[in-house]
């Protein structure tokens, strides 16, 4: 592949003269992008929410973009109609925002049916309180919840249950191992479907990968990675089966006190929630082939299901609006704006040129290298800007951009997701796990997490490289 042939056309496509952007301006915006990524990496130290950090960079880059005459002001064409919109409105990928907003609303309301707690407690009781069985059940549950809901919600549900159940079983000494293994599995489960994580949504949407295709490609890897992670978790953290009948009897008696029906306020709503969850997955999975729905997109599906679920709580819907993670949505919206300005400032083209050399190494070495590089970068900063940036760059690539089966898309997806397992700040779900760990007053530093997670993450990344090179 000729690296020179790989050039972004985004700005030019929007009628902007690429040649008019001086190199100094591009470098200035590159520095701003680096600064934003650094600030996101230091989010905890800065005591600032992501939306505020990226929001600040969005307003600054927009102002500078206007000052350097980089932005395509004027009306935009929507369905053949010219509409006047602020320049930052079309910069946002509203489909992604709608998917996240609708999904979180849907999951939040559905959780009120008691369905998720029912599943979690039923599995706990089925394990009979045996630590190894619990690890396997919770691990599989983490992967499935991460895939169906999202990795943060999965970690919250499984992590909080783990704390309560191990405490009940008087096995708090295993809590650290359980939580770390579960945290590492959230990012594995986050690979399973197109809507399991934000990088999947961004990259999958940009590449034009269907939900089914995504599942078929990612599924086998997720299965193998889950089994390997659980096996490693049991060995590293010394989680074993109960040996004597007395131990098993006592453990079974302790978990028998859990009432799986406790969270079910209405039997009818429980079954409605179950049916709606199945329907949600089915419709999302078939969005690309359903008449009418395929034009409206997954964002519409997510919002629709969220609204239908809200009918049950129509009088107190505002309480669910309050519970929405506005920081996350604000972060995404601002991020899309920043990335859009960076595109006009030719920063993405600059990065794309560097990336072209990696892509030029071919489908095997190039894709493998992108997994490793993507994972490394994702481990120290948010994987969403990385995914958004790389998706934009790959979309502009003359070959990859039109080939949804290219291994490079998968390299970005796998790298961005699995990189989150290298450090506690690598993904939102590992951060949730660390928060729960600290809540239980377990001593775990940043380095401590890295030391424990590194063998798992390295194995997962190597598996991903091998999988992409050999099977994708």
């Amino acid at each position, binding site marked *: 592949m000729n690296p020179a042939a790989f050039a972004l056309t985004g700005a030019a496509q929007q009628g902007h003269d690429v040649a008019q952007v001086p190199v100094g301006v591009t470098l200035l915006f590159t520095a701003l992008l680096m600064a934003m990524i650094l600030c996101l990496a230091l989010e905890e130290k800065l005591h600032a929410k992501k939306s505020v950090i990226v929001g600040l960079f969005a307003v600054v880059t927009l102002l500078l973009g206007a000052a350097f005459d980089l932005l395509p002001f004027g009306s935009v064409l929507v369905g053949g109609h010219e509409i006047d919109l602020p320049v930052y409105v079309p910069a946002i990928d509203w489909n992604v925002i709608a998917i996240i907003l609708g999904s979180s609303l849907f999951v939040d309301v559905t959780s009120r049916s008691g369905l998720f707690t029912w599943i979690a407690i039923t599995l706990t009781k089925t394990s009979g309180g045996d630590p190894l069985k619990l690890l396997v059940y919770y691990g599989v549950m983490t992967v499935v919840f991460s895939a169906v809901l999202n990795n943060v919600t999965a970690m919250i549900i499984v992590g*909080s249950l783990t704390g309560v159940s191990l405490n009940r079983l008087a096995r708090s000494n295993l809590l650290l191992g359980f939580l770390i293994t579960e945290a590492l599995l959230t990012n594995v489960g986050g690979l399973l479907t197109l809507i399991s994580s934000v990088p999947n949504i961004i990259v999958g949407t940009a590449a034009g990968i269907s939900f089914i295709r995504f599942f078929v490609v990612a599924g086998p890897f997720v299965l193998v990675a889950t089994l390997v992670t659980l096996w490693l978790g049991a060995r590293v953290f010394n989680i074993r089966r109960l040996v004597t009948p007395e131990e098993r009897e006592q453990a079974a008696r302790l978990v028998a006190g859990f009432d799986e029906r406790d969270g079910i306020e209405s039997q009818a709503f429980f079954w409605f929630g179950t049916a709606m969850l199945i329907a949600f997955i089915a419709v999302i999975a078939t969005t690309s082939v359903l008449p009418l729905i395929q034009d409206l997109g997954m964002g519409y599906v997510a919002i629709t299901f969220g609204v239908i679920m809200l009918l049950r709580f129509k009088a107190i819907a505002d309480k669910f609006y309050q519970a929405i993670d506005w920081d996350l949505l604000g972060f995404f919206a601002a991020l899309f704006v920043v990335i859009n300005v960076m595109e006009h400032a030719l920063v993405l083209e600059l990065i794309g040129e560097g990336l072209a050399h990696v892509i030029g190494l071919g489908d095997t070495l190039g894709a493998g290298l992108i997994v490793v590089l993507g994972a490394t970068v994702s481990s120290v900063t948010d994987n969403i800007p990385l995914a958004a940036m790389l998706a934009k760059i790959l979309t502009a690539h003359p070959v990859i951009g039109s080939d949804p089966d290219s291994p490079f898309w998968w390299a970005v997806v796998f790298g961005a997701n699995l990189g989150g397992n290298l450090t506690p700040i690598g993904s939102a779900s590992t951060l949730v796990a660390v928060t729960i760990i600290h809540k239980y007053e377990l001593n775990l530093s940043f380095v401590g997490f890295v030391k424990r997670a590194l063998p798992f993450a390295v194995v997962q990344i190597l598996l991903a490289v091998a999988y992409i090179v050999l099977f994708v």
Partner: protein
Amino acid sequence: MTRVDQFESAFRAADKPVFEFLQPMVERALVVTDLRGADATAFRNRVRDFLAVLGNGVQWDLDDGDSFTTIEALLERVNMRNPDLICTYRSLHSEAWRWPYSLGEYLDVLTQVAPCPVLVFPHPRADRTNGHTLQSTDIVMAITTHLAGDNSLVNNAAGFTNNGGTLWLAHVEDEKSFSRLMDTISKIDAIDTDTSRERILAQMLREPSDYIRSCKEVIASHRPSVHVEKIVTVGGRLVEFRRLIDKYTVDLLVMYTKDADQSAMHGLAYPLAIELREIPLLLL
């Protein structure tokens, strides 16, 4: 991170104490009285008849008024006999039983030192029984302010309930404490007062209700002839317990008196033990 707490709360609420049945073993019972001779023996026989539920296998020892005149002597005899149950009454070797202000020095010490439950009968010379027959343990009530998970209290109460009798499990949340808590919450702007009032009260009453349901199921499988009934309510504890005892003409009241943090009877037990002088009290 609010949702971590929300899910933890949901799972903690779902983690309910399950009742485990354990029949209390009473092989040796010691009757302590300040009566002497035939009166003492008659008292012991009355006690034995009242506790027919314990069966014929119990060895009934008697320490009458001549066998002790000091607390030290009484404790020595208790240690020597090593009973599973002590049966006695208030104000031993004293006329203070006429006034409802103390248990008497012997019983004060005995309730805290004895390694076994103490069954306190109405004083033999008192004639106030408010309609209670003192004949049998057909209606037994276990009272507490924290019933959920209290297997020992329920097992003891069930063990002393006659076949065909009724066991009332009563949990009363203190209205004053709840009001004080809500008053504090109403001054904190970050906590919604109305929701808190509704949810806290519901959860407070739900836990003992769930536990009593578990007790009913388990006791039904071990002692099917005993009927278990539920009382879970909010009120002034002393007033409410007294009302319930009168309403259901309770034959035997069962309650805890020991407190791990102090050497005196715990807060509620003492006034109850002093004021409820008309019926036998099983003090654990």
